[in-house]
């Protein structure tokens, strides 16, 4: 039973209340609902989290921005080609501090989704993000990025305009900024498309968000030639917030109510705001170079590998070179 089926069962329980008149019966079912939420909806597999991260009712970046900074002002265009609707960028204050906010926006409805291209940005979207981030660097303004994308868009136009180059340039420039950069993965964090706005001093994830190198379906179809094995792939790929915290890829996890963020959006927004301000307070007193070196140190550490210890062999590099390979 995956999380969507559980949700349907919960809805069925809630419907039962409407038909009943007695106070006692209602209370009984309400208790049942609370118990169900507490016991069943908190037991989530990795695949459940994937489903939750892609949930239609999951709060979108727009709603986050509305709560975090009511005076948000959107800025458009990359000054080269066009304005990409799948990335929102602009300036707004959070708790009185002006932030440059960049977010990937999924649509709430099908029409909006098509207009937003399902939050799959084109190169011009990344160039817009970079333009705004450079602006933030100029005016010494902290940057907040909200990540929610299945990946960068694979299409003819995107390739013609240099998708790879746009992402690479973003990665390079983002490592060079001296202003604080805070990233929050609010839904799906798919591959290079997500990382291109996610090179940050502090990376946070919502509890049921995912951050992966490719979709579980893609992984299953490449490795096992069977896309229906995606639930197994999700388990194996270690893409949930908890796993990534264990790997020290992300810094903190923002808790969600049982059953996902859409059950209590207000609480999630509140927690997110708290975490962002917390991270900002840690970063604001550092000097610019400190933030630059901090971010680069963090990036440099990524990886899971080992190096042969030469000292144990009693020789120097060149000896071993001779022994191992005679080219």
């Amino acid at each position, binding site marked *: 039973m995956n999380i969507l089926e559980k949700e349907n069962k919960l809805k069925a329980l809630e419907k039962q209340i409407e038909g009943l008149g007695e106070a006692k019966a209602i209370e009984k079912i309400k208790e049942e609902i609370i118990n169900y939420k507490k016991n069943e909806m908190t037991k989530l597999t990795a695949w459940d989290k994937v489903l939750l991260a892609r949930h239609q009712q999951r709060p979108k970046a727009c709603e986050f921005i509305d709560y975090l900074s009511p005076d948000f002002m959107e800025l458009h265009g990359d000054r080269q080609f066009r304005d990409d609707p799948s990335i929102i960028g602009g300036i707004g204050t959070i708790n009185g501090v002006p932030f440059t906010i960049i977010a990937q926006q999924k649509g709430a409805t099908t029409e909006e989704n098509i207009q937003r291209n399902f939050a799959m940005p084109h190169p011009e979207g990344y160039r817009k993000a970079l333009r705004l981030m450079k602006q933030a660097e100029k005016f010494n303004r902290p940057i907040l990025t909200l990540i929610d994308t299945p990946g960068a868009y694979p299409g*003819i136009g995107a390739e013609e305009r240099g998708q790879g180059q746009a992402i690479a340039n973003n990665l390079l420039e983002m490592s060079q900024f001296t202003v604080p950069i805070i990233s929050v993965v609010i839904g799906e964090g798919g591959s290079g498309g997500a990382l291109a706005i996610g090179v940050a001093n502090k990376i946070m994830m919502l509890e049921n968000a995912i951050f992966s*190198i490719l979709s579980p379906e893609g992984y299953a179809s490449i490795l096992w030639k069977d896309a229906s094995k995606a639930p197994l792939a999700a388990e194996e790929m270690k893409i949930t917030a908890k796993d990534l915290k264990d790997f020290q890829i992300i810094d903190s996890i923002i808790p969600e109510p049982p059953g996902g963020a859409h059950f209590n959006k207000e609480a999630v927004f509140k927690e997110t705001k708290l975490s962002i301000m917390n991270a900002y307070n840690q970063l604001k007193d550092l000097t610019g170079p400190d933030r630059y070196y901090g971010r680069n140190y963090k990036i440099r550490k990524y990886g899971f590998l*080992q190096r042969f210890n030469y000292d144990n062999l009693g020789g120097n590099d060149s000896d071993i070179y001779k022994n191992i390979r005679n080219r």
Partner: protein
Amino acid sequence: MNKIKQSINSRKLLKEKLDLFQNKLSYNKTHKMDVPKGLYEKCPTCEKTINKKLNIQNDYICTGCGHHFRMRAVDRIRHIVDRNTFIERGIGYITLNPLFQHDYEEKIAKYKKATQLDEAYIYGHAKIHGQSCVVGVMDSYFLMGSMGSVVGEKVTKTFEYAIYKRLPVIIFTASGGARMQEGIFSLMQMAKTSAAVAKHSRMGLLYISVLTHPTTGGVNASFASLGDIILAEPNALIGFAGPRVIEQTIKQKLPDGFQRSEFLLEKGFIDQVVNRKDMKATLAKLLLLHQKVIS
């Protein structure tokens, strides 16, 4: 009785030693001849049957149509670098299995044996027409040249070594992208290598990236497209998403020559398409042009 046992044991030991010795001999033999199995090969573009030995002598270029075959990393170094000047750096990295994939380690071991490489990337100090530089080469025969933790680390080390020695960097890329078996760690190598390029660039040093067939995915979206000068071999597949993924997404056939070097040259993403025969001369010229005149 004991004596007999002893003699049998000693014989066994001897035999093992002999076997080892013979293995070594055969290893050396295969090592010297870097010819893949089979004497003839079909060119994928003009469908001409080519003698492999002749092909190797011709720098892996088809004599009929000029198609550039894929090249192993070692051959590439032999082809580009002055004789006996390549000193490999950064050896001894061990690929681990962070996600506990059930057959990943065996796969790596298999490729290690087949290619005689530690990983899909090697780099070292070298000279091209007498000019010092750091050369890195990816090998697409090693798990499609995919970028895992070790490859990312070695690429980063390439730039760090170059910063330490104040040398230009030349990297030949050939990769299918980030290595999915290592999951999120592979993805993060994109950020790591890009940051390394930035550091190298801040020192005012030259980075030439040469894109060879194929350069796609995570490698294309990180250090491959960040060169000060980007060269490409003719007809190499270069792009972020693979052609099959694009076809599935837009549900139509892609035009001929899409995502090839010439296409990218036309769109303005690479500086020049350089034939393999002229590659060494071009690189030497570029290095010469970037010599410091004003101190």
